[in-house]
Each structure stands twice: as C-alpha cells, then as structure tokens.
C-alpha cells in the first residue's frame, strides 16, 4: 500500500457539456492539512465532490492510498477511509441531532454498543452538540450545525477527511473552534483536505495550499510561503 493518501492525476470533470476541472494533478501527503483556496466558482467544491465520488470523473485518475478509486462509488470510498462534509445542507434538518449521529453510524454498518461508543467518542470532541441530542438539527445555529456535520463525518474514523468551507458564515470565534477541531483530528493522524475562502484563518492550520483558478492548479506551495506573500489577490486574478 502506497503511503500517499490521495493522488490526483490529470483530472477532468464537469457538469453537462462543460468541463469545470481541466487537468488537475496533485498528491496529498500523509498527515497533512492540504488546503484548497480560490475565487468563487473556481471549482473547489467540484473538486472535493469528485474526490468524494459525487461528481463523476471524465478523465484522469484518483487513488486513495495507492488504490485506484476513480470509478468507485461514494460508499466504497467511505469504506476505504474517506469522509466528506459538504459545503451546505450538511445535516438532516428534519431529524434530531441524535438521529443524525445514529444515521452516521448506521450508514457505515455499526450497530449496538460499538455504534454507541463511537458516537460517545466523537461527541466528546463537540460538547456543544452533545448537549442537544434531542433537538431538530434544522434549528441549530450555523456553528452547531457545522460541528454536527463534522462530528458525523468523524464517526467512521476516516483516514482522509474532506471539508468544504467549514467556517463559511461563522463568527471568527466559531470559525476558530472549527479550525481547532481540524487540528485535533489532524493531530490524531487524519489527513485533511480543506476548502476555504477564509484564507487568513486557514493558513495557520494548513501545511500546504493549492490555489485553484478556473478549474486549474494555479499554484501549490507550503502554507508558510503564502503567508509571507501579500499578493494573494493577484494570485487569484491570475497575474502571479
């Protein structure tokens, strides 16, 4: 088994007649926080969805720890160690917090005591969520909802976690809590692929950053390199 958690080669994908991602290639290193930034509509969510198996690959190859998963379904990728938290609508709103968590265990085939201890383990990380098990998920605040979605994704103890803008719309304090949770999970050995608009807040927790512009890799560099630059805007616009 290769140690490379995610390897993407020459990836092309899109919707309908249009390609949104054109020839993307990168490797994610074991144990890193790999952050994808880029302007609105540049294809960040699409890229994450392709990795999660929601949007089909048109050309190229994706491998997970050396195993070709290009044509595997989402469920199979989850079984192989992947978890994905969508950008929006990432909890079942008409179900309670407790039911959301139960579903997360049931989707991956955990039952009974094992499922319960798995839920308890994850809830330990999110006290805010743990105290609201009987509440409808749709009535949670944005931050709590994001925590719940995060918690559900962690139920499978994934090796690779895909997070699509987990801090979107949150206050700086809540965003901080989210990034803290990202670091905690990462410290426990999970490789994280993070999409963020909030570049300033994301850089400190990131190891490397991929700048995606117009569905192509504009740049891939250590986060420390980007921190030193103040021309991010130019990078986005394509002049760098």
């Amino acid at each position, binding site marked *: 088994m290769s140690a490379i958690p995610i390897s993407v080669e020459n990836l092309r994908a899109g919707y309908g007649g249009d390609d949104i991602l054109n020839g993307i290639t990168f490797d994610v290193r074991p144990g890193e926080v790999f952050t994808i930034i880029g302007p609105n509509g540049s294809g960040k969510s699409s890229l994450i969805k392709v990795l999660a198996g929601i949007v089909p690959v048109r050309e190229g190859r994706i491998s997970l720890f050396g195993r070709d998963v290009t044509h595997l379904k989402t*469920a199979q990728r989850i*079984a192989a160690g992947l978890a994905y938290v969508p950008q929006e*609508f990432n*909890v*079942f*709103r008409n179900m309670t917090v407790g*039911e959301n968590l*139960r579903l997360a265990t*049931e*989707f991956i085939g955990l039952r009974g005591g094992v499922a319960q201890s798995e839920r308890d383990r994850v809830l330990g990380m999110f006290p805010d969520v743990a105290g609201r098990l009987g509440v409808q998920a749709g009535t949670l605040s944005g931050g709590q909802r994001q925590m719940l979605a995060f918690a559900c994704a962690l139920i499978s103890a994934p090796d690779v976690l895909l997070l699509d803008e987990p801090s979107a719309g949150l206050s700086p304090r809540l965003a901080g809590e989210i990034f803290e949770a990202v670091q905690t999970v990462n410290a426990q050995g999970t490789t994280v692929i993070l999409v963020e608009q909030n570049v300033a807040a994301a850089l400190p927790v990131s190891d490397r950053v991929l700048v995606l512009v117009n569905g192509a890799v504009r740049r891939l560099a250590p986060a420390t390199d980007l921190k030193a630059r103040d021309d991010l805007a130019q990078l986005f616009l394509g002049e760098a």
Partner: protein
Amino acid sequence: MAQLLVNGLVTGLIVALPALALSLTFGILRFPNFAIGAMLTAAAYLAWVLNFYGGVPLVAAALFTVVLFPLVALACDAAVFRPLRDRGPITLLVASMGLSFVLENLCRLMFGNEARNFDMALTRPYRVMGVRINFEQILTAGVSIGAMVLVYVILIHSPLGRAMRAMSDNPTLAAARGIEATRVVSLTWLLAGALTAAAGILIGLDRAIDPQLGWNYIIVCFAAAVVGGLGSPVGAVVGAIGLGVIGELATLVVDPNYRAGVAFAAIALVLLFRPNGLFGRLEIRK
C-alpha cells in the same frame, strides 16, 4: 352527528393508508404516484382471486395479499420507474399514469367489468350509544390504525426507517454519506405496497370490486397528501382523517352531493395559509 363523525373517521382511516403510501413514495422518489388508485384496484382483485377462485378464506386471502402485493409494487418499480429514475418528476408522473392504465385494464381484461364481492357473511351492525357501527367499520379502523402504528414504529425506530427519512430529508447528503439508495427505494415500495394492499381489501369489503375501484380514491388521496404536506407521513394521515370527517359533517349543512366541495374548500383554505400543507416543510433547492 356522532354517527357522521364515526362514518367520517372510518372513511378517513381507509384513505389514510394509500395517502400514507403516496406520501412515502413521494418523499423518497420525488414524484406523485398516480398509479396509487390502480394499485388499490389490483390489490383488491388479487385478494378476490385468492378468495373466490383459490377458495382461500377471506382473512387468509387478505394476509396473503398484504404479503404478495408489495412484490407486485416492487415489480412495477423495476419495470417502470427504475429505468426512469433520473428523468425528473414529470416523466415519472406520466409513467405512473401509464402504469395506472395498464394495471386497470389488466384487471378489466382478466375479470371483466362486472362488480365482484368477497365471499363473506353479512353481519348486523352493532349499536353503541345510538351510533350504528358495523363489523367492517371496526375492522377497517383496527387494521388502519394498526398499520399506521407499524409504519410509525418502522420510520422512527428502525435503521431502514431512519434511512428512509434521511433520504426524504436530503437525498444529496444521504448520497454523500454513502447510503444505499436502491435498498431504501425497495423498502419504500414494499411498505407502500403493503399499505395499498390493506386499503384495497378494506375498500373491497366496503363496496363492490370493479376495475374502477381505485379511481374513486385518487383525488381524495392526493388531496389528503397535499393538505398534509407532500412527503410528510403524519400530514397524509391527518389530512385523510380530516377530509373524511369534514366531508361527512358537511352533510349537516349542505346536500351530500356537495360534501366533496366542502372538503376541497377546506383544503384551499389550509393551503392559503400554509402553502406547504399542514406538516409540510420547505424543500431544499439549489
């Protein structure tokens, strides 16, 4: 008054079953299954065939039908709906109309247009505090309430029921979590088929069985599901019982021929104030 209430309740309880079936399939498959009427007809005939030709006692025939008919529903899905799953609600609605036509005419072809009856003894109605209640009404109420409790328990307390609700709530997220959609869809058809079968038989007890049997229930079924909030199981049940009771009570003030009108006026009123129905919720659209 009490008599009307009882009659209305029983009518509502019959309609509640197919309305619930309609609501379940709508929640998961996102199209209104127009064939619900023809499915009621087909189920009634299936029980009748077992009872009349097969010589199976009515109770056993009914039980067989409730077990067998869900498989028919599953077969209909495999033959008609599954190949069109990604084509959008209008295509599926039209397909369900086609299925409706086929099912109804299959019944007509095999058993003709004449009205059939189950082989059962007539019983005298009971009188309870001045209200006439016959055995079929008690049976109907019992079966219907039992079935609804069962569906409730499945939806709330079983993993597959939870998966159904999750898929109805947010199909995209369910897919992202790796839910096995095919299994959930199959379970939904099995449940809907069982509910439809039970209702078809109860209707057959109440009136004669003919190829048009289900037609009389399509509109009120849809009305109940819509007023309750399409896709909401509780809403469908409340809508059906409410419509049944209002329809009967309306005969106190208007000519019985217009009772449907009163019920529909009530629907219009509800939808005016709650466009998504009583228990409807805002759909997630992107």
